[in-house]
């Protein structure tokens, strides 16, 4: 790799890369994203390569391991360009056939195509599948196209042209103005206008300033940041370099959760590549501007996603937040001006520079501009990553794109905003999803996690789940949060345990309101949200637990019993053998019964009965 000393050098390199690719007939894109990776996608690469090399055609076909395509439910995914033929659930054994038919020939492997669940019709091209057709892919568009560990691939698609544009004549103030015009708001949860933050940081006094990327992705159930950083790290880096130029930073940090080792690896890899091209480091593209970026890992603490805790952790201290009266844009890391943005926020920047702030602002709603990537998971058919314009109705996300709820169950609610957010119930299914509308509904955007819940989900249990999470993650620095979360958890646990008392629900509301006022950082201030929003929309469910000792969704163990249906039981004895507690009695070929007092409600019997005779009441 030789160093690029000017914007012209970059353009020449781009031409050269593309010229070299002229001889490539087809490109095989294998998804190496988080879902497909665990499904074995990564192992397909050597199999394809070997197959092609045995036929001595390796030079004419290109095999790339890309980032997430978004449709993770159908992984491992393989797409063949230029026709963009989409194959789902591909396993090693099918590679030879794919090469034979679709790579060397132009035939299809029918049974690997997506088939429409309603009509059974086979769909050939990726973008014709309803899951993709309903989306507006911009920020996440290239992740599934991108060879995750190859900078040339990013450059071939126009990568670093936004940086080149900035460095060939835009003043830092002009860059900031463009971002302000775009209306881009932070994608990490707060929704603070990015351009305004950059401006304050630029104005802050200090020789040394920092740009930082928040890749702590604490919302358990969201993975768009992982997918972006792992699959298309240069897009994030390019955004950070532009941001660094705009605010006048000399050093940058990516703070990535340790639970994402591949994201850390790919990002480090990308930094090395960018440095050897002179796109990062000293005198970037010969412009005189210098910036270094380092990757640091977190230690698995949710609170470290909060800006001041994150910076404390970067300094090697424990990750405790400090009061908000000192702004990090003025006094952040090492008490120096620091500009922290989320992964998705940074990844939006190259697009804004290339296509203008005005263009970005033309997408979305009045106060929420652009698109948002959502992680649509839980009880949903097409779980995956979905990018839509801000203001897209929830119904479109859940049904048109998400394909509805599996097993013909009823949609109950969607949880957004993670442990700081709340639940949006079925009756608000037509809600246009943006920052304001979610807030009005008692939830929040958060980082874009959307956990879909069906009728089998107990909302009190969900509240208990988040309180357990928060009780573990509260750093304990301030009393309202430390004690408040614990108190709320005690009460909700009691309710789930069938020991709820009249007045419990009211006390939860009371506690929640006072915590919102008094907690020091965002974690504590928003911790009551999951409880308050479920009480607001599902009060009847809380009441059923407290007053009728009943869990309508049949989840809370203390309030359910396992029973055997006399008519269905064949007396096979399987459940009796499997039950770890010896709670099932019965003679061979006679109906069995469960002793409620011994049963610990583990569900093993239900799973083991082949006749569907066991159910929960």
């Amino acid at each position, binding site marked *: 790799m030789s160093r690029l000393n000017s914007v012209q050098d970059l353009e020449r390199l781009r031409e050269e890369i593309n010229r070299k690719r002229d001889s490539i007939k087809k490109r095989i894109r294998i998804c190496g994203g*988080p*879902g497909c*990776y*665990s*499904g074995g996608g990564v192992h397909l690469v050597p199999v394809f390569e070997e197959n092609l090399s045995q036929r001595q055609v390796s030079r004419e076909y290109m095999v790339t391991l890309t980032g997430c395509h978004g449709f*993770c*439910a159908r*992984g491992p995914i393989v797409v063949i360009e230029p026709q963009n033929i989409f194959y789902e659930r591909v396993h090693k054994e099918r590679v030879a056939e794919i090469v034979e038919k679709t790579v060397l020939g132009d035939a299809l492997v029918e049974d690997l195509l997506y088939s429409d669940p309603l009509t059974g019709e086979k769909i050939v091209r990726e973008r014709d599948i309803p899951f993709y057709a309903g989306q507006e892919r911009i920020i996440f568009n290239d992740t599934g196209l991108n060879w995750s560990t190859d900078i040339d691939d990013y450059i071939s698609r126009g990568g670093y042209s936004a940086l080149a544009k900035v460095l060939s004549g835009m003043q830092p103030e002009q860059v900031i103005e463009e971002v302000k015009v775009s209306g881009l708001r932070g994608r990490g949860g707060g929704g603070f206008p990015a351009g305004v933050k950059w401006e304050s940081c630029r104005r802050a006094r200090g020789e040394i300033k920092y740009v930082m990327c928040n890749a702590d*992705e*604490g*919302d*358990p*159930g*969201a*993975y768009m940041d*992982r*997918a972006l950083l792992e699959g298309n790290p240069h897009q994030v880096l390019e955004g950070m370099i532009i941001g660094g130029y705009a605010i006048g930073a000399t050093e940058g940090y990516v703070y990535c959760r*340790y*639970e*994402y*080792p591949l*994201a850390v690896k790919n990002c480090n890899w990308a930094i090395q590549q960018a440095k050897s091209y002179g796109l990062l480091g000293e005198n970037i593209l010969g412009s005189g501007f210098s910036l270094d970026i380092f990757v*640091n*890992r*977190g*230690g*698995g*603490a*949710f609170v470290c996603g909060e800006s001041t805790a994150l910076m404390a*952790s*970067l*300094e*090697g*201290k*424990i*990750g405790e937040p400090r009061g908000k009266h000192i702004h990090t844009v003025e006094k952040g890391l090492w008490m120096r001006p620091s500009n922290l943005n989320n992964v998705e926020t940074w990844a939006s920047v190259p697009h804004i520079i290339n296509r203008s702030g005005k263009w970005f602002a033309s997408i979305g709603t009045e106060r929420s501009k652009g698109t948002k990537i959502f*992680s649509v*998971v*839980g*009880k949903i058919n097409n*779980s*995956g*990553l979905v990018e839509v314009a801000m203001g897209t109705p929830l119904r479109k996300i859940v049904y048109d794109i998400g394909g509805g709820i599996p097993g013909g169950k009823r949609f109950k609610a969607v*949880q957004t905003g*993670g442990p700081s957010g709340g639940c949006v119930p079925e009756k608000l299914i037509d809600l246009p999803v943006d920052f304001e509308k979610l807030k009005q509904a008692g939830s929040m955007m958060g980082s874009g*996690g959307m*956990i879909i*819940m069906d009728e089998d*989900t107990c909302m009190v249990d*969900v509240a208990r*789940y*988040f309180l357990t*999470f928060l009780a573990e993650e509260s*750093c304990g620095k301030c009393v309202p949060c430390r004690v408040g979360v614990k108190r709320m958890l005690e009460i909700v646990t009691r309710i789930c345990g069938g020991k709820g008392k009249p007045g419990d629900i009211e006390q939860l509301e009371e506690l929640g309101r006072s915590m919102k006022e008094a907690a020091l950082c965002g974690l504590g201030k928003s911790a009551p949200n999951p409880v308050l929003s479920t009480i607001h929309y599902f009060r009847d469910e809380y009441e059923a637990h407290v007053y009728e000792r009943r869990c309508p969704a049949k989840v809370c163990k203390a309030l359910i019993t396992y029973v055997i249906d006399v008519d269905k039981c064949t007396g096979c004895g399987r459940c009796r053998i499997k039950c*770890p507690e010896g709670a099932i009695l019965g003679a061979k070929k006679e109906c069995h019964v469960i002793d409620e007092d011994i049963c610990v409600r*583990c*569900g*093993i019997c239900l*799973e083991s009965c082949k006749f569907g005779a066991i159910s929960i009441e």
Partner: protein
Amino acid sequence: MEFNLQDVDSIIDHWGPKPASLLQILLDVNHQYRYLPQEAIQRVAQRLSMPVSQVYSVASFFKVFSLKPRGRVIMHVCTGTACHVKGGPRIIERLEQDLNMKTGETSEDLFVTLETVNCVGACAAAPVVMVGEVTYSEMTPSKTSLLVKELREKES
């Protein structure tokens, strides 16, 4: 892996013996030995010129660190929201029952440690279980039970 000071020193040198490197150093040590040996903590404190208590406070603040030796197999059951609603808790219960231990504990023969993790970013494949760096998708209590059996057979 046998503990040796040279390995710890080379980790410290890689990050630089400065306070800001503390978390990164501890992460690598913890990864290498599957826990933080006391000797390592002392060495880190000495080389970074900070009180041992400060190293301990960081080590106990973050969930990732273990101060006790952990099993040769480390199983992480995801307790993220997506995995929770898709049945993660039942996997944990089953494992606790099968292994006759609680989450966070290590079996006496140091075969397995059972832990939870708040989302590994494979939510579309929920519920997931991780063994070392390998992710197992769409798990059920029975599949996980079987997995443990297989792992144990593989070892012997």
